[in-house]
């Protein structure tokens, strides 16, 4: 009898073990990333979840206001929370997050997985290299582009733009000349609200801070001219894209995502759109992938970001984004997915990329530049003050 009882007991224990193993399912990996108006992010997550069964990635939808997202992440990470396992970081945050000890260095995991940091987008990887340690893999690299209306701009001007053979002054002339044609109401739209986008735009106008006075004056002359909307100083990427895809503007400065916006939400067709490098160079932007140091599932988190940078993951992401894995830039399937990669204006822009200031206290530098430039653009301060302000910020 006693024997029978113990056999039953063992059986019962085994049963509960089996049941609980079945019930526990895959480990959940929480991925903090901004909302994506294109299906690419969700498709990549679905592809990962379908490709393996050990982990299940859940997307925590963050605000599209980058500044607010950064503050939200910092508040969570500072408290040592494991709310998010994988973080998507704006390129300019990585140094600060690494210095603060919020994110996990990846070198050893990369080595174990047989991955070489040199195989990924150099700009993205460099923004996440702090104190000799590699903290990030690319999510997607980004760069500033000039979008123009092929159907409005003359062939001769289009050739000049595509080759990058023009100045801000030329662009202003074109914007004023072409404005009003084919139902457009604005010549040129760009970002000059008081936020990080202003730093990206000022970087391009001033040719990577080499021509502060001339660049800022060119920027102001656009704002004061009739070629830009009256409320251009409240424009962020959203307003810019909105104006361009609705066919209201001839020229616009925006990131590569606007190409897809035209395709999905545009009242104009993609055949009417061309891209070109910007006169002062294209600011590098984009997002990085990092792992929360307090995550309970660091292995799973790494497995996911490794997948996003693998050929399979890159193919899915490339329907909207540029590949961060260099080898994929020449992959035929990726090029077929993303026609930007085969455009001359785009490849020219890739050759003239410029970075924003690199600093462990980037937000302070950025804030000072924003204040100085914005005060000049809205007429509160003189050009000399703005130049001095930006110079002081860059010297920090």
């Amino acid at each position, binding site marked *: 009898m006693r024997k029978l009882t113990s056999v039953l007991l063992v059986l019962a224990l085994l049963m509960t073990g089996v049941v609980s193993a079945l019930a526990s399912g895959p480990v959940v990996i929480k991925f903090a990333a901004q909302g994506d108006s294109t299906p690419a992010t969700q498709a990549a997550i679905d592809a990962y979840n379908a490709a393996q069964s050990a982990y299940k990635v859940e997307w925590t939808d963050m605000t599209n206001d980058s*500044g607010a997202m950064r*503050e939200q992440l*910092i*508040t969570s990470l*500072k408290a*040592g929370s494991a709310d998010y396992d994988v973080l998507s970081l704006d390129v300019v945050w990585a140094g*600060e997050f690494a*210095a*603060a*000890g919020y994110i996990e*260095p990846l*070198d*050893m995991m990369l*080595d174990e997985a047989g991955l070489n940091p040199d195989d990924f987008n150099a700009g993205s990887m460099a923004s996440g290299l702090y*104190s*000799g*340690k590699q903290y990030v893999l690319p999510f997607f690299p980004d760069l500033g582009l000039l979008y123009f209306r092929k159907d409005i701009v003359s062939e001769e001007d289009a050739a000049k733009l595509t080759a990058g053979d023009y100045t801000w002054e030329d662009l202003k002339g074109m914007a004023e000349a072409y404005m009003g044609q084919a139902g457009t109401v604005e010549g040129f739209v760009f970002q000059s*609200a*008081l*936020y990080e986008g202003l730093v990206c735009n000022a970087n391009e106008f001033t040719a990577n801070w080499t021509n502060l006075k001339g660049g800022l004056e060119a920027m102001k002359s656009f704002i004061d001219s009739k070629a830009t*909307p*009256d*409320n251009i*100083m*409240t424009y962020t990427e959203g307003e810019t894209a909105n104006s361009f895809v609705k066919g209201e503007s001839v020229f616009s400065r925006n990131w590569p995502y606007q190409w897809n916006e035209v395709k999905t939400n545009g009242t104009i067709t993609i055949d009417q759109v061309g891209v070109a490098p910007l006169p002062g160079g294209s600011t590098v932007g984009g997002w990085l992938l990092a792992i929360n140091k307090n995550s309970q599932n660091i292995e799973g988190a790494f497995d996911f970001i490794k997948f996003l940078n693998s050929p399979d993951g890159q193919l899915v992401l490339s329907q909207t984004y540029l590949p961060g894995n260099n080898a994929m830039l020449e992959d035929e399937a990726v090029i077929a997915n993303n026609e930007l990669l085969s455009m001359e204006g785009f490849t020219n822009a890739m050759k003239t990329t410029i970075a924003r200031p690199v600093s*462990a*206290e980037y*937000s*302070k530098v950025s*804030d000072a530049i924003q204040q100085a430039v914005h005060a000049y653009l*809205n*007429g*509160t301060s003189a050009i000399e003050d703005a130049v001095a302000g930006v110079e002081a910020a860059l010297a920090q």
Partner: protein
Amino acid sequence: MTWKQFLFVLPLLLLVTTFSLYPIFTSGVYSLFDYQTNDQTRNAVYTGSKLNAPLLVEDGDYLLFYLRKDREIASPEAYAAIDALSADISAFLAPYEGHRQPIDLSEAGAEAVTAFLDDIEARITGLVGAYPELDLRVSAGLDNQIPEMRSTIVGSNFIGLAGYRQLFGDQRFFDDLRNTLIFTLVSVFFELIIGMGLALVMNRPMRGVGLVRTVSLIPWAIPTAVSALIWTYLYDGTSGIVARVFTQLGLIASPELLLTSAGGTMAAAIIADVWKTTPYMALLLLAGLQVIDRGLYESASVDGAGPMRTFTQITLPLLKPSLLVALLFRTLDAFRVYDLIAVLTKGTPETLSIYAYKVMIGQGNYGYGAVIVLAMFLCVGLIALLYVKVLGAELMND
């Protein structure tokens, strides 16, 4: 008060100290330290020596990782040196593993860490120098990991009153103080005038007064963030009706200036604030009006006093306590304004609350942020004191 009576008050006293004074005390402590969250040598209040054990172990693991990689490419005669280094580093790290926070460090402990780092730095330099043709990865450790490991010995970040000295030289603080004062004075002034008018009307016995009171409270009932959003639509340069009307009236040169120019944003914030909080002011004043004895007005009218005389001789003096409370509440509220401006214009005109938030959360500088917050606390205290002195010393003695 007997000790038994005191026992009854004690819980309340404890509650007040915990919930009211403790946060202020903490801010006061922060303000004396160079406390910055984005720097691992200053990311907490450190009074004595600490060792950032997690970072020490992380960097040590990097050295071990480099040595492991180097052993794969090194010739066998280097194995002895590499293995000895690896073993020593592992043994040294062992007691520091498993910590998630910096640990206390004695003077002897700090010396031991420094001595160890000196020793392995010399040995790694020797190893790298002995095999120059191998281009050993561990040489990267000399540039990055060893210096970072030295920085894990964290000293005290007490700076005393240096933060306050910085405040006096901070032009942005004084600009923001001016913005805050302008916003406070102008908005409270208009709220008082309009609120008083509203309260007098609502105090009248007339038909539909209940409806008027309810309707007038609506702006106050809407959450500030939502009403700020409503106003951004009204002020919008391309489609906002308020912006359009102001332009037609000639108050502003063109509609977009309302949300982009310095003067425009200030006016926009004040108008939105007056719209929102006037009902609150009116409500507080109405409560004061209702406790005034009706008989006084009857006697006044029998004595032949006109409406103006009645207002200045009866209403105002008897309303003084309510007026003080209403003004005090509104002034302090307006002085601390954050949400309205943060939503309306994303931070212009910059007020002290917004500046403090940017420094603390945006830049992670809790030390200096605490200094700004305490300066605000001081201003708020001064304003309260001023009101009590000017408007009603007797009120506090009741």
